[in-house]
Structure formats: structure tokens, C-alpha cells
């Protein structure tokens, strides 16, 4: 499966938080690959480990209490976990950049938006301050903010506009990989549509790869090529978008689809997943989903979360499919 031409190849990434109350196993054996120009969606509910994954890939997990227990993050052929902090700083914001969830808190409130973009450019590219300002204005133009407004401060912009500024900062150095952590969750639906449209357009124009972290399968359908479904720190299913939507395998994935009201059907019935997310410091042994699963059996408590390839690179971690792979 591992060929040399993946832009990003994550192998068995495991991140724990060592707290007084116990160990939170936030991300366990996470593996996926991403090619140039591709978008992967990482989907899950609160506490699934989505944001820790994003921060882990950027090496931004605070340590202590965070600890990368094992794994590799091979980006353009180099393991990011081997880099010195200094070298890593050259990658962040430059080749890999991030869009944050909350456009109200991720911008500096006392700095004009233009200068916030120029800051990144000055840091990573060999440009004079003047050139950086010009480039910053170009970036603003690219995301649809007029030059006249470039000297304004974040509070003078609406939520959608602020998120555009966040996108402009992220794209300023022409990154090869963009990590977007719930970029539209704080936005209204018509504004969300604007921002997603913009991201799709830019991704196409600049051939950027993207990791889209979201809880919304609708956004995945709209913008992603492949999908990883996370539950309690584990990717329980990973597949091409079409495979996953047409043929979801893991009981959790099936449960997620059953929980979303379907606007294409006038009389749909919701089939929720029973129970609630387990305590992250005290996850059940074996499969973490077994306490909520309709197909649970005794062996689930001892299941080693081995992944099964059910064909076409569609991976499932569930005892129901053990030994039934291709």
C-alpha cells in the first residue's frame, strides 16, 4: 500500500494525554495517506480526537500533558517527528498550514488583517516588508476582500469575512497541505456555502491537498475525496467517499447516517445510536464502540482493532468483518 509518491503518509500515529485522572488515549494507531490535490475528511463527534489529530500532524500538541507515543508522519518523504523544533517551524505556516474553527478567536484583535497575512509571508519567504504587504493584499483579493478594507481590524468584519482572512493567512505561502479544523462550524449556512465554494475553488486553482476536519457528513459529500470516520480516538472506517456513502460498513458509521435528518426524504425516521460517548479516561477494552453497538458480542471486549480491507482500499475496524477481507 505504501508507495513513495504520497504527499502525506501517516503510520500508526498514537497520541496520549497523561493527566492526573488517568491517561486519555486521544488518538490510537491512526494511519492514512494523502496524494497531491486530494482532500480527506476526518469525521467524528465531540471527543473523537479530530482536533488532536490535526494538532498532532502540525506537532502542536502541548507536551506535557500530551505525548506522541509512536508513529510516523511522512510528509514529502520526511518524517516530521524527526525534525528539530527549528526545522518544524519552517514547515508550519509554510508548507503545511491550518485554518481554525473559530474566526473570532484565531485572529489577532489588535493587528490589521493585512499585517497578519504579511507576517506569515515575512516569516517564511524572502521578501521585503513592502513586497509582503502587496502579496497580502493580493491574498485578500483572492478570498474576495477588497483592498480598501485591508487595513481594518478583525472586529470590523463579519464572521464569514474573518474566516476568509483565516483562509488568506493559511494560503499566503502557497502550502502543499492545508489542515482545516471545522472551518465553517461557526458560520451560518449561506455564509458556509460561500466559504466552502471558495475553498473548493482555491484548492482546484492551487492544487493544494487538504485535511478537512468536520462533524458534518454533508460537507464531506460536498468537498472530500476520501473519508476517515473516527470514534473515541480510533479511525473505525476509512474509504473513498463514494464507497463510504454507498456502502458504509462499521456500525458506528451506519449509526451516524441513521442519526442525520434526511431532507431528501419527506417522512424519514431517525435511528439514533443508543447511549453516550464513553469517558475518555476509561474507554472500554477492545472495541471502544461496543458499549453502544447493536451488533455487540462477547468477543468485542477482546478485539484488537485490527483493520480489514473489504476491497478497494476500504478499511474497517470491526469484528464483524474480521477475516472477511480481500
Amino acid at each position, binding site marked *: 500500500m505504501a508507495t513513495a509518491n504520497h504527499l502525506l503518509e501517516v503510520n500508526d500515529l498514537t497520541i496520549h494525554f497523561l493527566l492526573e485522572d488517568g491517561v486519555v488515549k486521544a488518538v490510537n494507531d491512526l494511519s492514512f495517506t494523502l496524494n497531491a490535490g486530494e482532500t480527506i475528511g476526518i469525521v467524528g463527534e465531540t471527543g473523537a480526537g479530530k482536533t488532536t489529530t490535526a494538532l498532532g500532524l502540525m506537532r502542536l500538541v502541548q507536551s506535557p500533558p500530551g505525548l506522541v507515543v509512536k508513529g510516523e508522519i511522512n510528509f514529502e518523504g520526511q518524517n516530521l517527528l524527526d525534525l528539530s523544533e527549528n526545522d518544524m517551524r519552517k514547515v508550519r505556516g509554510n508548507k503545511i498550514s491550518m485554518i481554525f474553527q473559530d474566526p473570532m478567536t484565531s485572529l489577532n484583535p489588535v493587528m490589521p488583517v493585512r499585517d497578519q497575512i504579511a507576517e506569515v509571508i515575512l516569516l517564511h519567504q524572502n521578501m521585503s516588508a513592502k513586497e509582503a504587504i502587496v502579496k497580502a493584499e493580493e491574498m485578500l483579493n483572492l478570498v474576495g476582500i477588497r483592498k480598501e478594507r485591508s487595513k481594518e481590524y478583525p472586529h470590523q468584519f463579519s464572521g464569514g469575512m474573518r474566516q476568509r482572512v483565516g483562509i488568506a493567512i493559511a494560503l499566503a505561502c502557497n502550502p502543499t497541505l492545508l489542515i482545516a479544523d471545522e472551518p465553517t462550524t461557526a458560520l451560518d*449556512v449561506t455564509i458556509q456555502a460561500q466559504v*466552502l465554494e471558495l475553498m473548493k475553488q482555491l484548492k482546484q486553482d492551487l492544487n493544494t491537498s487538504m485535511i478537512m476536519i468536520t462533524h458534518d457528513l454533508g460537507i464531506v*459529500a460536498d468537498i472530500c475525496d476520501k473519508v476517515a470516520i473516527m470514534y473515541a480516538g480510533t479511525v473505525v472506517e476509512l474509504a473513498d467517499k463514494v464507497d463510504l*456513502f*454507498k456502502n458504509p460498513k462499521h456500525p458506528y458509521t451506519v449509526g451516524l447516517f441513521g*442519526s*442525520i*435528518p434526511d*431532507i431528501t426524504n419527506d417522512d424519514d425516521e431517525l435511528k*439514533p445510536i443508543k447511549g453516550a460517548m464513553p469517558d475518555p479516561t476509561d474507554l472500554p477494552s477492545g472495541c471502544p464502540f461496543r458499549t453502544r453497538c447493536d451488533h455487540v458480542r462477547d468477543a468485542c471486549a477482546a478485539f484488537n482493532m485490527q483493520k480489514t480491507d473489504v476491497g478497494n482500499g476500504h478499511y474497517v475496524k470491526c469484528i464483524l468483518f474480521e477475516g472477511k477481507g480481500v
Partner: protein
Amino acid sequence: MSVMLEVKDLKKYFKTKRGSLHAVDGLNFKINQGETLGLVGESGCGKSTTGRVVLRLLEATGGEVLFEGKNILDYKKQEMRKFRENAQIVFQDPFASLNPRMSVFEIISEPLIINKKAESKEELNKKVLSLMDMVGLAERLRSTYPHELDGGRRQRIGIARALALNPSFIVQDEPVSALDVSIQAQILNLMDELQKELKLTYLFISHDLGVIKHVSDNVAVMYLGKIVEMADYKTLFADPRHPYTKALLSAIPVPNLDYQRERIILEGDVPSPINPPPGCRFYGRCFVKHGDVCQNMDPEFKEVTPGHFVACHGCHNA
């Protein structure tokens, strides 16, 4: 079917330093007994204010709120007290709407104690446990505090508290917005069961069109303090007339790869509701625009087909 709640030309303005903020500006709607009206719109459109004005948690600036035929805006203190037993609210944020220093039992029993609905300790005990059972809270949780529980369970407490006085009408103000989808589905199903069992009438406020379609009999779409379109849920989703409704429907991300539709991407943001200009509120973002009339005259909220109301000059002529 009898009308439970009727709202006529309801207005709520707030005074601000920069002028008068028209949060709710002339609403008209009816909700039949046992039905759900879904009120949908984006942030700042006035949907939560509407929910509060209808319950007189905020005093209206003008208009009428007829509950079972009587205008509650004229009610005196005694009558209001009676009305509040009948009309309850479930809030959006189950983290902020529960007193952190009260146990589950205390929270649910408080309305019963205040309104003297239990004659003895045993009766109170019985009533609270039956409410907990009704909303799916295990008896062992009676002495726990809100912070020990997850969002779904907390919202169940909020629902049990709202049901304590046996109301006939409940305002649901974004009750599932703070919840994960798997928990959201549990709560939506619970509300549906309770509505059937107790013949409740809901005003269901949400920004999520999927949720609104799932729960509503009729749907009203709000934009900047006004209802721009209202119809039964099937008609509204199958045959939207107002350009804003069309744009809103086309903007929802749908988790279905076979669902084809025309995408309408609106330009710009929602304008300020402070001192709104005359004419159609949607004029600045509208992609249709029927000339000067849109800019100068407020469109009338007219019935285009039976039960389907639209406030748009273009839609009236067509």
C-alpha cells in the same frame, strides 16, 4: 383542528445607541393544537426573540399573541402565572440553562414546589421520578449534578423541567444545536414521542433545515425580523418561492451523493437590523430583484396557494 397560538403583527424593537433595532417586525402565524411550527433562519434573524416574546419573557413592542383565543399581552400577574404553567420553554444550551448547584431532582422538582403541585414529599418524589422516567433519565441519576452528565442527559433534564407543570405548549429554542448528531437524534425522537403522547404543541426554533423539516408540520422562514415564507413542510421544501428560501435550501450540505441540485451562492452578509431601510429586507442580497418596487416598498405577506404564504414582489406577480 383548533388553533392553539395565533400571533398577529407581532413586533419587538430594542433601543440601541445607534437607533432602533427591529428584531421582530410584524409577524403573523398560527399553530394548531398538537402541531409543530418550525421557525428557521440564520443568526440575528429574530427567531429566538420571537420565542421569548410569545412567552412574554420579553415584552412585545406591538401586536397580539393569542393563546387559546385570548391575548396574553393583556394578562395581569395572576393570569400570567396560570399561563406560564401552560406554556414552557426548552433552551438551547443545556450547560448554561441548568443551575450547577442544584441536583437533577431539585431542578425538576422546583417548578412543582413553586406552584404547589405536590401535597406531600411522597407525591413530589413520585412525580419527579415519573418525569425522569418519561424523558429517559435513570432513577440513579436523581442526586447527580449537571456537570456530571453529558449534553444529551442535561437536555433531558431541561425537557423534564419543562414538562413538570403539564404544559400544552412548548417553545423549543434550538434544543439540539449543542448536541452531537447521534445524541441529537435521540433527543429529537424523544420530543416526537412526548408530543404524540401528551398532545403537545411546539414552536420549534432552529437554524438547521434538516432538523426543521424532520420535526415540523409547518415551516416559517425568517430573515431580518420578518417571515419571508411559510408553508407546510412538504410544500416549502419541494416548492420554495422566495429567493431567500431557495438560496437557503440550496446551501445545506446534504450527505447524499445522488442528490443533484442547483447551487445558489448568495453574496454578502446579512445587513444590520438597526434602522432597516424601507423596501424588501432581502433586496441587497437578492439575485432576482424585480426593480424599484423591491427597493421602495415592503412586500406584503400574501397567500399564493392555500396555506403557502410569501413576502416577495416578484413571487406575487408570477
